[in-house]
């Protein structure tokens, strides 16, 4: 019987033999398992991308036997939300870093202007130049900005020293 099935699949049976065998297979229900097994063996030997097996059926049956659980659906949804949140957070962090580097890491445009005007200018900061504090203090006393901005503007005179 098994040999006949194998021969049928390989196309080695005559038409009448094949018809007789197929009739037999239809009539006896137990043989369709063998029919499927031989097809599986052939499929695996030919190494196709998709191989049919009864594993799927077995799995489906077991899943059907399990009680219906609603929670997994919600869990999955929360996971995507967390993912979305962390994605948003990293985008924000990137934006923050970009903003900070824009705000903090940015050299004042004085250097550019200095080069354009090609004067004997150094990109030195005032804080490294203690002799300047005298001028800053004297200037600050009369600075009109101090009237609007208050005492906080005096920070300019001692910053970085």
């Amino acid at each position: 019987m098994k040999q006949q099935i194998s021969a049928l699949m390989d196309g080695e049976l005559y038409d009448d033999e094949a018809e007789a065998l197929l009739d037999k297979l239809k009539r006896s229900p137990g043989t369709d398992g063998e029919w499927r097994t031989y097809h599986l063996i052939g499929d695996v030997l030919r190494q196709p991308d998709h191989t049919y097996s009864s594993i799927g059926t077995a799995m489906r049956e077991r899943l059907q036997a399990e009680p219906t659980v609603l929670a997994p659906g919600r869990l999955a949804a929360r996971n995507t939300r967390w993912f979305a949140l962390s994605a948003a957070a990293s985008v924000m962090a990137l934006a923050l870093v970009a903003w900070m580097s824009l705000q903090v890491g940015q050299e004042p445009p004085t250097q550019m202007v200095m080069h354009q005007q090609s004067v004997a200018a150094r990109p030195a900061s005032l804080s490294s130049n203690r002799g300047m504090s005298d001028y800053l203090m004297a200037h600050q006393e009369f600075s009109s900005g101090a009237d609007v901005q208050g005492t906080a503007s005096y920070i300019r005179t001692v910053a970085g020293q």
Partner: protein
Amino acid sequence: MKPAIALIVALWASTACADPLWQDDLNWLKTMVFASHQTDYSGVFVYRYGNHVETSHIIHVADNDGEHARLVGMDGPRREIVRSNDQVWCFIGDSKIKLDGRRNGRRFPAVLPEQLSLLNENYQIKQTEEGRVAGFHAHAVVFKPKDALRYAHRMWAHSDSGLLLKSEVLDERDRVIEQNSFIQLTIGGNNIDRSWIKADKPEAAKLSHTEHRGPEHHAELPANPSGWLADVPSGFRKVAEMRRSLRDKKEPATHLVFSDGLASISIFVEALEGGQDDRPGLTSQGAIQVYRKVSGDYMLTVVGEVPPRTAMQVADSVRLGGR
């Protein structure tokens, strides 16, 4: 007819009562200036320019004796400024410098109306947004300059008192080049430490190095006594001229001050002494530029919260004349 009038009155009353401080441009500007001088407050603020960030503690008290303020740097070596009306003490490390004689006879609030009209002439003043700074509700005000020779300013003032909570200086491309912002603030003087106001003075004896600097006595001179002239951008007016002594300098310097209501330009003219500090060039710190150049036998120093180009142009225009 009657309901219509009632409606108009109700509308008028609601707009008038809603936010009286923010009704009229000059009115709230005045409130801001008054608040910076008359409010008691203490808090922590962050000063930032370029890649430099610095945190300071500030106390400000206005009492019967006038205005007192103390500014203490919270990072690095000791840096402290104590101001009592016209007098300023500056502590850096263990040295103490006393400065006094701020604009004789031009003390706040006498200077206010003139300054406000200058401000209004040179900047387009506009309220922009509302927001929160250091936990307080604030109104933002933008001072947009009428030319590229000065910086734009953006300030957030406390909506109730007008106290300045945050200020930014922006260049011509709207980039923030300097920022001052409270991160913690207490308004009202009940729990403020006032011990430093008088207790500070004997401390001078403990300091290793004490200096006294400032304008010479009776230094407020007539209109243009020194004969030094400069071309400043339109809108700037000369607000002071004096002779003052500077550290390590034998000869006192001539000091001219110009203001457009918000930004100031100082010009110092000294005889050339050839010391180590007499290097020409441009240095900057946030919105402040210092540009030095040699002109004949003199060293010129221009200091101001203006773009580098303006400081250089002003320095190039300084000349002795008219006498």
